[in-house]
């Protein structure tokens, strides 16, 4: 186990940020701490880094007790949401910072910086200042800077949170590929379930200072341990007495064995998908998602009376 967290508690005044956290993060994996804002995931990451000290409990990194080790001695790479670029230093000097502090010989520093510039595709920007880079480039620079010290663990705090949607997606794919190349134990914080599901090897869902569930993306999605996990990982609707994903509902214009039936009362087209609302007489309103092709094949229209039932193999939680 690369990072072992036992019994960690943290308060900020009256606010309980973390409560009895026990967590083992395996070596070499890409782990996501996922949860809503204010849930404690960033605090946990900062406690691992040593930027914050836990009120009680212990943190062990690669067998070494790091609970009271200052941040300088932990050899962790930390990437901040807003890059924390050294504004007065060029991209190359930013990346070289940790190595200069470690007093490595200049030739070695140059070689290492060159290597990292290639890795993050910033070779041609080596002599620019951070202010001359785009957000995505700055974050790649910050990542190279953190990797330069060959950290035991790489910690990323909402690394793509400040970027626009398109760059975010590119960088996400890139981070996944990068991790497959360098294999450093990586923990990243995100509130975006899609990001976590797409990138992480394993996901830790944190809410209100507690761990809700730990598992692979598939485990979490297919076997949510609680209503919170189910609803946090994707849209959820209520079909009669069950919670279910809107795309896991089978919809038909013909009478069949069903959980509920009623007219289509709302029709919203979003790109390839159509979001419907069905209002049964004796049940609460149901949201159903179908693709445009399905809607055409089934001959659905606003106002049609439809019968709904869970699709075969759908995840459900009794409400």
């Amino acid at each position, binding site marked *: 186990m690369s990072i072992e967290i036992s019994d960690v508690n943290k308060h900020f005044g009256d606010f309980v940020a973390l409560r009895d956290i026990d967590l083992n993060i395996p070596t070499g994996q890409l782990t996501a701490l996922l949860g809503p804002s204010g849930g404690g995931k960033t605090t946990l990451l900062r406690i691992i*880094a040593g930027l914050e000290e836990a009120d009680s409990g212990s943190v062990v990194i690669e067998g070494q007790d790091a609970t009271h080790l200052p941040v300088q001695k932990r050899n962790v790479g*930390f990437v*901040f949401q807003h890059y924390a670029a*050294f504004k007065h230093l060029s991209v190359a000097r930013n990346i070289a910072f940790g190595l200069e*502090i470690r007093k490595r010989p200049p030739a070695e520093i140059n070689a290492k910086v060159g290597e990292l510039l290639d890795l993050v595709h910033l070779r041609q920007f080596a002599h620019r200042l951070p202010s001359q880079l785009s957000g995505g480039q700055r974050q790649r620079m910050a990542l190279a800077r*953190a990797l330069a*010290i060959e950290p035991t663990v790489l910690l990323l705090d909402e690394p793509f949170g400040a970027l626009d949607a398109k760059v975010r997606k590119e960088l996400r794919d890139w981070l996944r590929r990068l991790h497959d190349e360098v294999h450093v134990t990586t923990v990243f914080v995100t509130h975006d379930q899609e990001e976590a599901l797409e990138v992480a090897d394993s996901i830790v869902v944190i809410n209100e200072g507690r761990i809700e569930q730990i598992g692979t993306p598939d485990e979490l999605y297919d076997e949510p341990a609680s209503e919170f996990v189910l609803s946090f990982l994707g849209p959820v609707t209520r079909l009669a007495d069950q919670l279910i994903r809107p795309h896991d509902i089978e919809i038909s214009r013909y009478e069949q064995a069903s959980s509920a039936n009623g007219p289509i009362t709302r029709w919203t087209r979003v790109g390839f998908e159509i979001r419907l609302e069905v209002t049964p007489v004796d049940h609460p309103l149901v949201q159903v998602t179908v693709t445009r092709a399905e809607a055409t094949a089934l001959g659905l229209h606003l106002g049609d009376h439809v019968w709904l039932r869970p699709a075969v193999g759908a995840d459900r939680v009794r409400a």
Partner: protein
Amino acid sequence: MAESHLTRHGRSGPVTYLLRAFAIVYLLLLVAWPVALVVTHTFDDGLESLRAVFSDPDTVHALRLSVLAAAVATVINTVFGVGVSLLLVRTEFPGKRLLSALLDLPLSVSPIVVGLALVLVYGGRTGWFGPTLESWGIQVIFSTPGIILATAFVSLPLVIREVVPTLREIGIEQEQAALSLGASSWQTFWRITLPSVKWAVVYGVVLTLARSLGEFGAVKVVSGNVLGETRTATLAVEEKYLNFNASEAYAIAFLLAGVSVVAIAIISILRSREKKASS
């Protein structure tokens, strides 16, 4: 940077022109014209008055003393100012607001009061601490240390006022990043914090220097105004003027004003450069 957001573009009606004219006339009458007159009076007899100033050893001594006091006070206030700014922005402690208010006191209290207060503490015969220092062979009042103290007192908050907002603005993330990369607090300060507030420190230094050179009231009380010993340039201006040696008074005044004008010029050049660098 922020200024461009605050400027309203277009629509300059008659009110705008009236306001502009008012501002220009006001500045002309209050600042530009009187200062210009000092310059013209200095050169009434060509370079004669300036030569008289530089050939009088006592006046040269006064100028030297002013420069020395201003330089030492600036060094003290820069080191102290950067340290206190870090304390105010980066740490929490009881009494912080009181300290912050206390730091502005030198700007609001009359320099004469400052001078008298210093005499009460450091005065050689009756001061609270002065006799002790005197017994150690250190004379403060009526001597150079007193002049430096008074000068440092009146220009105390200038560096702090420049550095504090900049420190707030840069935040702590860069410093935390440096720490996470293995830098000690001292390395973080020299490599990250200080370069980030460099321009603010430079402005603070220039303002402190200009303010220190021009100090009159506090220095007058603590220096004793001894010719050739504790008379500073500003005191020399007064002395010459009262002794009907107006041309030399104007010449010294011209030199003092010149330093301030150069200081302001340096600041505006640096500011515009910084703007270019950051955009």
